[in-house]
């Protein structure tokens, strides 16, 4: 009996190897075409993209949220902004940036398109986001810092909807002391314009924002052969500048 099982296992394993070897190129073609279930046209968004100051102005108090698109805050949002203390921003303990700020950080990122998902790898904070294209839905335990992302191709664009974020004291951006709640929803629309990758990021959060707010930005193709640089945030370096901050609270 055990001999029979072993033989059957060996035959099955050999068949699997043959099928896998044969399917390899086909799988590559499918991935290159990025064919999701029941999708007709898939834009090629893949590659390593440059979001440094070569592509766009560096983020600040007024970038990307300036006069034209700065969100109107709820009473709660204004209250949180008023009491916000820069020294407790979790980034000074290496907590990663989150959408809608992560997309604008001035670093490189990589996009990988698979049939059932799109993967965004960010040089900043070593973050990776998976956008599911297979209609799966988050469960009640899927709350996280980067949320849960689902997407679909629409025309020449990829639309990504992310929710299930946890409360984040600086979850709106890195500069203006605006938090985000578990009701934050971020909608991203990615498309190609010539050699550029563009995105419109829209954020909704009825706890802190009266209306959705949006910005549009771009990435340029990375120099040939560029690989994302390890971030590996260091807790000592991360908090080293806080002593230069006049304390808001004793």
């Amino acid at each position: 009996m055990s001999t029979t099982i072993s033989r059957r296992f060996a035959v099955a394993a050999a068949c699997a190897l043959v099928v896998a070897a044969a399917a390899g190129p086909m799988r590559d073609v499918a991935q290159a075409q990025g064919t999701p279930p029941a999708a007709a046209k898939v834009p090629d968004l893949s590659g390593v993209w440059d979001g440094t100051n070569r592509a766009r102005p560096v983020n600040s108090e007024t970038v990307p949220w300036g006069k034209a698109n700065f969100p109107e805050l709820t009473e709660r949002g204004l209250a949180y902004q008023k009491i916000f203390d820069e020294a407790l921003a979790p980034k000074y303990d290496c907590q990663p940036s989150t959408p809608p700020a992560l997309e604008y950080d001035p670093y490189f990122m990589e996009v990988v398109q698979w049939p059932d998902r799109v993967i965004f790898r960010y040089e900043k904070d070593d973050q990776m986001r998976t956008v599911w294209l297979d209609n799966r839905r988050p469960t009640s335990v899927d709350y996280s810092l980067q949320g849960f992302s689902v997407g679909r191709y629409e025309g020449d664009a990829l639309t990504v909807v992310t929710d299930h974020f946890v409360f984040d004291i600086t979850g709106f951006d890195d500069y203006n002391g605006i938090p985000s709640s578990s009701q934050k929803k971020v909608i991203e629309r990615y498309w190609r314009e010539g050699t550029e990758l563009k995105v419109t990021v829209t954020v909704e959060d009825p706890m802190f924002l009266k209306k959705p707010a949006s910005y549009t930005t771009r990435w340029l193709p990375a120099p040939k052969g560029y690989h994302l640089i390890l971030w590996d945030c260091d807790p000592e370096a991360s908090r080293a500048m806080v002593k230069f901050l006049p304390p808001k609270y004793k």
Partner: protein
Amino acid sequence: MTVRRWILGAVAAAAVGVLAATVPALAHHSSAPFYDSSRTVEAQGTITKFLYRNPHAFLFFEATEPNGQKVEWQIELGGIAALARNGWTPDTLKFGTPIKASGRPSKAEGTHGMCCAKITKPDGSPIVAGKGVQDEEPPK
């Protein structure tokens, strides 16, 4: 001179290989709560430590005040991804190297921090030969 002008200056200098160690932007956080943009300080001394780490690197150097007291300055630099793209390595600034730095002073009382700094040899000549990938297209 603004930070962005410093960066553009660095990029231009890098293109011809005469980069003074000019600091990439503090993209991780605002410099405003920490450093006084209305003032510029200048100090000269020797490097005691180069903390080449993310999110921001730090350069420490010991300087002598006019009253003879020794103080340790701490210069906040950009993230190492940005520094690396401009040709910096952990060995770029070695212990004991004499430098001159000018930049915005830290705001907290009794501290000797500096950001957005221009770092050169004491005679003003460059100490880092840089290269970068950011010189192909200007920001729009």
